[in-house]
């Protein structure tokens, strides 16, 4: 295939999923600039290996490339700095106080966002791929490179954790109000 034909085809088949790619990268890196770097990197990689694209779902293939780019970005950053300081700060008293400032009707939305962001990465990625990107277990299994049964159990476990955290946040909120 000539390069002339490759780029428009790449646009039509892969780049239409750019929003999905960026969304996954945002949730995985939890860093806007990091997400942009990872997606940029993933697009170049995907373009290079575009001729090897196989299987029915270009989206799943591209998402797998994006996921790898995110993991590379995280590893590079971890080598340079501390290990993801973001997690622990979320559920400290400080975070709870700022929760208090949020209007009650917005609280749930915020807890959901923070709850997902605070999930361990292996649960976070399957949850985002399933509930935000609406991919099938089969596609997720291909992206994350684990059997479908593992996708199922990680989703279950991830939702258990998220549900626990939401319940805790609501209870803490109630206690503070009374």
């Amino acid at each position, binding site marked *: 295939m000539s390069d002339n034909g490759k780029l428009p085809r790449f646009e*039509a088949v892969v780049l239409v999923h750019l929003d999905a790619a960026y969304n996954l990268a945002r949730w995985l890196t939890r860093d806007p600039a990091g997400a942009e770097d990872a*997606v940029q990197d993933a697009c170049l990689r995907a373009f290079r290996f575009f001729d090897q694209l196989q299987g029915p779902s270009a989206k799943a293939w591209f998402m797998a490339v994006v996921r790898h780019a995110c993991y590379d970005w995280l590893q590079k950053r971890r080598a340079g700095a501390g290990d993801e300081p973001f997690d622990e700060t979320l559920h400290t008293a400080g975070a709870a106080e700022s929760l208090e400032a949020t209007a009650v009707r917005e609280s749930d939305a915020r807890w959901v966002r923070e709850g997902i962001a605070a999930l361990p990465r292996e649960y976070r990625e399957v949850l985002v791929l399933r*509930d935000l990107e609406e991919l099938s277990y089969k596609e997720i299994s291909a992206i994350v490179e684990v059997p479908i049964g593992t996708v199922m159990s990680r*989703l279950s476990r991830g939702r258990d954790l998220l549900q626990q955290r939401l319940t805790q946040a609501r209870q803490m909120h109630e206690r503070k109000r009374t």
Partner: protein
Amino acid sequence: MNCARLQQVLDAHIDGELDRATSGEIRAHLAGCAACAALHANRSALRDAVRAHAPRHAAPAALTTAIHRSLARAGKPPRAREIMAGHRPSWLHAAVFACVAALAGLMAGYWLAQPRPDHPLREPAVAAHVTALASGKQLIQIASTDRHTVKPWFQGKVDFAPPVKDLAGEGFVLSGGRLDQVADKPAAAIVYQIRQHTINLFVWRSTDRTPDAITATSERGFSVVTWAADGLRFAAVSDVDGRDLTRFARLMAAT
């Protein structure tokens, strides 16, 4: 189905990933077990909360621009590619130097290089409609009036999510779906009934993302209504009156 087993597969059930028989067993159990029904309600509420509140981040415009620019360079002969590999400009850098004129030229190039709209595929859609009706039982592979059963059935079978709507209130009763082909393209066929008429709604993916307005025509005496949105192409085919089919198309296309 006992409670322990149900809890293992509850998420897969909510995600529409189980076969009909198992989902049927689950529904039967839920109807008779308050504890499991409560778990199910909690889980559904959680999923709704995630979908309602977790933002789906869209790629910033600057990133999109930068990527198009990098790819245009990456697609060039080896010399340019070596420079890229050794010293990849950051997207910011790229964005700052993005040349508007070159980009406009590039976009025009893409536009011209895009395959033309794959409408009219009216005749192939009519052919698929006739074939499906002739073979009787082929018409429906997943039989259900519940859109939450029909839509998930397509997961993993086609690489897009065809819209499935409940239009029973408007007289269009969902009867199921099947996999089909329109001119060799894999298509989802969603089957509705209105009065005694069968409507086949064919949905397939198109490389041309330009939206297309609802257009009603007839072909071999069948009404055919086509439109395009969201990178998907739609063709509704039926022997029902063209006005009814256009009304159906408007309801399906409404967001």
